[in-house]
């Protein structure tokens, strides 16, 4: 790089515009990734419909009889209280998206900031502290941390409901942070970043405009992974009484079904597990496709 070129602030992204299109093209050409994207989009439409009040609004009303079979009024039968299982499952899509989006976004932002800070200030006390914090969070088993946090928040009303989500955020940011940290350490040594530093740009500006945009492939794939992990963990936590506190979710429906399957009632079980499987599969396929489309080092699967 000549000096004249170095005095101008370098281009924002390591990926040239045609490379970004090629990532999209690769993603769209990857049939399983595309299938994952379509499945997620369909669920997002259902979620939107519930938000707009077009579907799943009567999930809490108990109008039917106990354990009614599927019929024209109750598409997937009713539960023990006579509530419409189909509507409950549809409404649960929204609950899953609310949990997934909140956890994926929050842990992504925290992971990006912590990872970038640690990677940028290599060998400083700041990095040591962040790495220690990651080690601590990784040493406490997730389910026990949720239990501890739920115990701690018993007396604090607004946060009590969010104990599960807060615990997920507190535990899930570390993987993102580790990946971002390693990438930032690598990027730091690159010419375009070094020249931005030499131009005298403040560190936050270099990080925000030149370094973090180049970690977007990590952040995107991690978001898909964390989203899936969050809604998967919700099921087990709701069964243990640590998850969604009031309302409905696939986890609560499955918890309900654990009593019913022994009596031969399978509606709750299928109505919760089939959409949950489809959505998780969608996210897993998308995460795989994102990872292989954006990581040139990855061997073709």
């Amino acid at each position, binding site marked *: 790089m000549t000096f004249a070129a170095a005095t101008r602030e370098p281009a924002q992204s390591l990926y040239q515009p045609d490379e970004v299109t090629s990532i999209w093209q690769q993603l769209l050409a990857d049939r399983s990734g595309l299938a994952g994207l379509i499945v997620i989009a369909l669920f997002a439409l259902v979620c939107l419909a519930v938000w707009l009040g077009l579907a799943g609004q009567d999930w809490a009303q108990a109008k039917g009889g106990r354990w009614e079979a599927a019929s024209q009024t109750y598409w997937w039968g009713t539960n023990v209280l006579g509530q419409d299982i189909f509507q409950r499952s549809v409404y649960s899509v929204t609950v899953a998206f609310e949990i997934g989006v909140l956890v994926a976004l929050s842990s992504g932002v925290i992971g990006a900031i912590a990872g970038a800070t640690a990677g940028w200030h290599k060998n400083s006390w700041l990095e040591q502290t962040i790495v220690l914090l990651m080690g601590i969070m990784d*040493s406490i088993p997730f389910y026990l941390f949720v*239990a501890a946090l739920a*115990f701690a928040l018993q007396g604090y009303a607004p946060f009590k409901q969010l104990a599960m989500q807060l615990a997920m955020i507190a535990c899930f940011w570390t993987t993102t942070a580790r990946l971002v940290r390693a990438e930032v350490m690598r990027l730091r040594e690159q010419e375009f970043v070094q020249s931005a530093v030499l131009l005298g740009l403040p560190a936050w500006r270099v990080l925000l405009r030149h370094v973090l945009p180049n970690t977007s492939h990590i952040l995107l794939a991690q978001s898909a992974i964390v989203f899936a992990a969050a809604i998967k963990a919700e099921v087990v936590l709701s069964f243990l009484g640590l998850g969604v506190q009031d309302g409905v979710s696939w986890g609560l429906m499955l918890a309900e079904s654990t009593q019913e399957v022994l009596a031969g009632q399978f509606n709750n079980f299928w109505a919760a597990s089939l959409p949950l499987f489809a959505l998780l599969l969608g996210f897993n396929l998308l995460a795989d496709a994102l990872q292989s489309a954006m990581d040139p080092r990855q061997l073709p699967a």
Partner: protein
Amino acid sequence: MLGLAPDSATHRKALRNLLQATLLILGVTFISFLLMVYFGPDQTYTLIGKNATPQQIAEVRHQLGYDQPFFQRYGQFLASLFTLDLGVSHSTGEQVRTILARSLPVSLALVIPGFILGNLIGLLLGMAAAWQSGRWLDRLITTLSVSTMSISFLIIVIALQIVLCTPYGLNLFPARGWNVSGLSSYLYYVAVPTLALILTNAGYSARFYRAVFVQEAGREHIRVARAYGASPFTLMTVHVLKNSLLAVLTRIMFSLPLVLVSGSLLLETYFGIPGIGKVTFDAITNGDQPLLLAVVGLTAVLFVLVSLLADVAYRLADPRIR
């Protein structure tokens, strides 16, 4: 002098690890303490009835250490973890240590077979997929593992229970309980939980091991061995597996505490098995602070110690990391 140099570096590295482990232990215990003792609900009234005299209240608060300064209470908590003097359960009045000593063997017996088989099957599938990399067997294994990864643990447990333990399926195994008195009854009760653990973990393991083996199989010395006419079996076991043993062992070591905790928590609660997971679940539902605190604190400390031991073991086993 020259001979001493690498040794002192090794010592410095070992000291550094020890320091890190100490900081980690202080960190995890501090968080447990903060969450469950400092910010946790006031335990005074769970211990005494409603109509207590102010004197009784003061006495209990003193016993609980509520009148002592913050760091002294934290110090006492640390001491209780290391002396295993964990106090009494608020819900049963039994020594926490006794409860843990009774339930831990049950959990180990419940989880270990599934853990070993899950890893073994994952290892074999990963090896097969890496060997046939890019061909139909690889695609089949990859598809199967992504599918099982998308099924919730709870769904697997319920489905297995329906198929194997109810009249709606084969009705071969008990739907609940743990009434073990010998090998045959042990196998009878452990079969379904083991199958559930295999199904949840084999997919993740297969994917992980496949990635490790594919990377290792692409190296120069493997190509050389292939050129010398080594059979696929020798190639995969002797050359690939041996060289990626470190990655394999690391995964096994680090996933054990996690599988032990999450596996026992769900399986024991679901099947009503009196192991550490059921004890923890009951402590959660009853708000039994001493028990919960002991489980969280001890597990986290054990996890740190295991990783420290693992690190030492690697150093001894593999001179490259010294």
